[in-house]
């Protein structure tokens, strides 16, 4: 990667990256060949050869063909906020724990030592460049999940929906669901697609070395939420996360908006694929002769939830004009190809006025691109995105000055996600005492962090089981119905029922009740037999809570030990995972 300002630190970092890269390449020859350059719509979920070609815009599926040239090929001087971090104020282990709690899905055994040895800034910079991080452990668990790399047309072909006659029989009650299930072998059922996607998500959160990328993929998926079970969505969501979200998770905001706007998953979820000029009559197909017209759904959520924010300064008239601009952005043969297509005959050719800017008549497909340019450059968007990022990484109500600085980084870099993250991680507000453990973990974060704390290893079945556990605590992955996605605030997740579900998960995990999940934790049953109970307790507390246990919690757990000769390691571990301290990050 060319870097215009070669500070000594940057040179060292470049040398480190290069040596890492050599290691990755060496490991690559023994592994699966990369398919990054494959133009057939396939995309390896773990491309490894990213030496000089950026992941974005090269070899990606047609759905992101609008993506612009990547910043890393841009020879102009780098704007402020995009310079590599050289130091971070992570002076002690508690600070490193804080960094790991926010930038990853929670520390594993040994992570604190590794960050201390490498230096917090260098570690974070490596996380900001995930293609250079070897990830064979996660890949091994994902290897059996073949749908993850399949293009949408192959999913539609290999996991077909029941034919119309069978569906009719189900609807009328002539055939039961059990009979239907008996007709279809398990490996051909469409349900497998979302099942594998959910399993892969928790497996990556637990196992991947590219932790910050996983955190950001989860963040952006919820920001650009789609509901997997609406319409034909289940056949599209795999490609949506893989091709529209993941390549840009640490890239440019505008590329995320472009890629999601064009993706069939979003086009179906927010109905834009059906939206047309007011006087359009369907010329062919089963709906031939039907009058269609405008649908505002995508336009409204683009403004309210994806870019400007609900108070960002748009009107109902803007919503309609934006909807007109996107008419014709639809899906080619939704049940065969499932790819983006622009259909000129559905498009409203008239002039539009969006947020005070005139879009001249006759712009065709580029009308939507113009709207994306307008909304991603709008000052409200920089503040809205900065607020959400600061909420994810700092506090539910993030400090105003921090949000302003992150918004400034957005504006200075044209929405570079890395620049915004650097602004957050180098901010005094991030490292302030009041930010420590200020966030309540979402169920997904809780399950991943608990499994990581116990050194969990999973196979495919284990990943399925953990994904179901996340749903039981209230966060069914890829199945958030409202366009706001799963919330990122404590008040949504702190409730009695959910707390019980967390305790039950902690018990099941510590007692090895999840098939396919192997956990060890800070203490094993053998330790329990060998060591004094209070020593065992110390080990469990140190490995799971890293010194954050309150005196009250320690007292309760000591009382739990009672006067037994041996500590019940499993119960102790479960209690620590279910403690108030571990619900926070």
């Amino acid at each position: 990667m060319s870097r215009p300002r070669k500070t000594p630190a940057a040179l060292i970092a470049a040398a480190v990256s290069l040596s890492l890269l050599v290691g990755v390449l060496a490991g690559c020859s023994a592994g699966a060949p990369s398919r990054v350059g494959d133009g057939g719509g396939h995309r390896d979920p773990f491309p490894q050869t990213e030496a000089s070609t950026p992941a974005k815009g090269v070899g990606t599926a047609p759905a992101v063909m609008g993506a612009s040239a990547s910043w890393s090929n841009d020879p102009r001087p780098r704007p402020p906020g995009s310079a590599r971090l050289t130091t971070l104020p992570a002076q002690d282990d508690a600070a490193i724990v804080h960094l790991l709690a926010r930038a990853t899905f929670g520390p594993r055994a040994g992570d604190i030592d590794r960050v201390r040895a490498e230096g917090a800034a260098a570690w974070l910079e490596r996380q900001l460049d995930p293609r250079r991080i070897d990830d064979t452990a996660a890949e091994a668990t994902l290897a059996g999940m073949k749908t993850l790399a399949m293009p949408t047309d192959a999913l539609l072909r290999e996991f077909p929906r029941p034919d119309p006659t069978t569906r009719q029989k189900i609807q009328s009650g002539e055939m039961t669901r059990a009979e239907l299930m008996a007709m279809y072998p398990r490996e051909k059922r469409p349900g497998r697609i979302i099942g594998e996607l959910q399993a892969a998500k928790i497996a990556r959160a637990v196992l991947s070395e590219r932790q910050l990328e996983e955190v950001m993929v989860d963040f952006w998926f919820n920001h650009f939420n789609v509901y997997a079970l609406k319409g034909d969505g289940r056949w599209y969501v795999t490609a949506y996360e893989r091709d529209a979200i993941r390549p840009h998770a640490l890239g440019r905001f505008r590329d995320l908006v472009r890629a999601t706007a064009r993706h069939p998953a979003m086009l179906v979820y927010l109905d834009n694929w059906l939206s047309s000029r007011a006087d359009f009559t369907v010329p062919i197909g089963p709906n031939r002769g039907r009058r269609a017209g405008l649908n505002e759904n995508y336009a409204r959520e683009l403004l309210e939830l994806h870019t400007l924010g609900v108070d960002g300064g748009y009107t109902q008239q803007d919503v309609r004009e934006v909807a007109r601009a996107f008419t014709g952005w639809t899906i080619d043969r939704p049940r065969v190809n499932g790819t983006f297509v622009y259909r000129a005959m559905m498009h409203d050719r008239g002039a539009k006025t969006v947020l005070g800017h005139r879009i001249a008549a006759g712009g065709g497909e580029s009308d939507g691109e113009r709207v994306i340019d307008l909304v991603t450059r709008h000052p409200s968007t920089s503040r809205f995105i900065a607020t959400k990022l600061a909420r994810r990484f700092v506090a539910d109500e993030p400090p105003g000055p921090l949000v302003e600085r992150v918004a400034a980084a957005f504006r200075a870099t044209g929405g570079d996600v890395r620049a915004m993250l650097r602004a957050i991680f180098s901010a005094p507000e991030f490292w302030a005492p009041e930010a420590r453990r200020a966030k309540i973990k979402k169920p997904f974060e809780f399950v991943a962090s608990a499994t990581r704390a116990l050194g969990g290893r999973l196979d495919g079945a284990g990943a399925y089981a953990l994904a179901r556990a996340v749903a039981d605590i209230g966060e069914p992955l890829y199945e958030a119905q409202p366009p706001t996605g799963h919330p990122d605030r404590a008040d949504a997740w702190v409730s009695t029922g959910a707390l019980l579900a967390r305790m039950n998960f902690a018990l099941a995990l510590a007692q090895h009740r999840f098939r396919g999940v192997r956990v060890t934790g800070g203490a094993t049953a053998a330790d329990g037999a060998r060591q004094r109970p209070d020593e065992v307790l110390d080990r469990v507390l140190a490995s799971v809570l890293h010194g954050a246990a309150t005196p009250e919690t320690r007292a309760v757990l000591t009382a739990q030990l009672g006067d037994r000769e041996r500590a019940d390691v499993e119960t102790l571990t479960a209690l620590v995972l279910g403690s108030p301290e571990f619900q926070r990050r």
Partner: protein
Amino acid sequence: MTRRTFVKAGACALVGLGTIPRFLVRAADAAPSRGRVLVAIFQRGAVDGLAMVPPHGDPAYDAGRPSIAMQRPARGVAEGTIDLDGFFGLHPALAPLVPLWQARQLAIVHACGSPDATRSHFDAQDYMESGTPGVKSTPDGWLARAAAARPPRTSPLRAVAIGARVPRALRGSAGAVAMSSIDRFDVRVTGDGGARRGFESLYADGVRDVLHGTGRETFEAVKLLKRAGAGQLTPANGAVYPRGRFGDAMRQIAQLVRADVGLEIAFADMEGWDTHVGQGAERGQLALRLAAFGGALAAFARDLGDRMTDVVVLTMSEFGRTVAENGNRGTDHGHATAMLVFGGGVRGGRVYGRWPGLAPEQLFEGRDLAVTTDFRALFGDVATRHLALAANAPLFPGWRATATPGVMD
């Protein structure tokens, strides 16, 4: 919900027509020996009030809805709009609610909604649940304030939401409990139960923060629920709940009422009302949702039997939908909608509220049904009267009702 269960639920409702439950025969002097319960139901996603309660008497009703308007009621048409009063009708999928209407237990408030013009689901739900349209900083919900206006808390299960999360309407000092299912509301321990005691101790000491407060309430609720055996109660009076999440929620609220756990306010919600595409008319997508909705409400009333004299059910939705259908035989976000109220003390058999009309010049912003009843007037009327709150209870800060719809005795 499959078509088969819909038909089944409908058939049960028709059987119900012959034998009107005893509670429907109003006993004027029935003293409330047991506690009163308010059940709030949120239809998330903005239900089309013009399809749920079609104003078939309005000449402009079907003008903008060529493919989704319901047929006007007519003799001999079994599956068309059910006429209520010559002007308003009920969607045929809501047939299970007809006995409640005929017994004057079910009231409808039409053209009801928020004075705030937002068409954002998120904001509108937030405003309706906080009870403060246009104000986002309100820390608590209107139902939590209603609970706080009652005599001091006596039961840990005084306010219960069915679901994984406490809804905005119940956030605050009410100590509301959220449970996805009664059966799974416990620490599932193996062995001597040491883990349950351990967890309880971890969350016991003081209300230091949100987690400790929640944890303590959790264990109180677990114990009470177990003692009362609510989960073991099977539906009474032959009630059959439609399959699905909402039917399950209503069945469990009925279990809590019947087990006398001290429930005062219950909350459940149902999604799937955001019908932008292929809404359907007498049949179709919306009809299936309404069948599950109406079937569950009717089963609830039947299940509770006499006990309904102590219970009022109030339904709400963040806004309505456009008067005209959109380009995809669906409807976009609109303004006013219709809300239902039924149970003890409800002056039913009437549609309340001033009808603003559907002619183009009568519409809000030229496209939507106008609001003529502020949702706060309805919610305040129902909660204040049914839960016997003081007239000046601060349910809706910064707002004072000038008129109430008068749906309650």
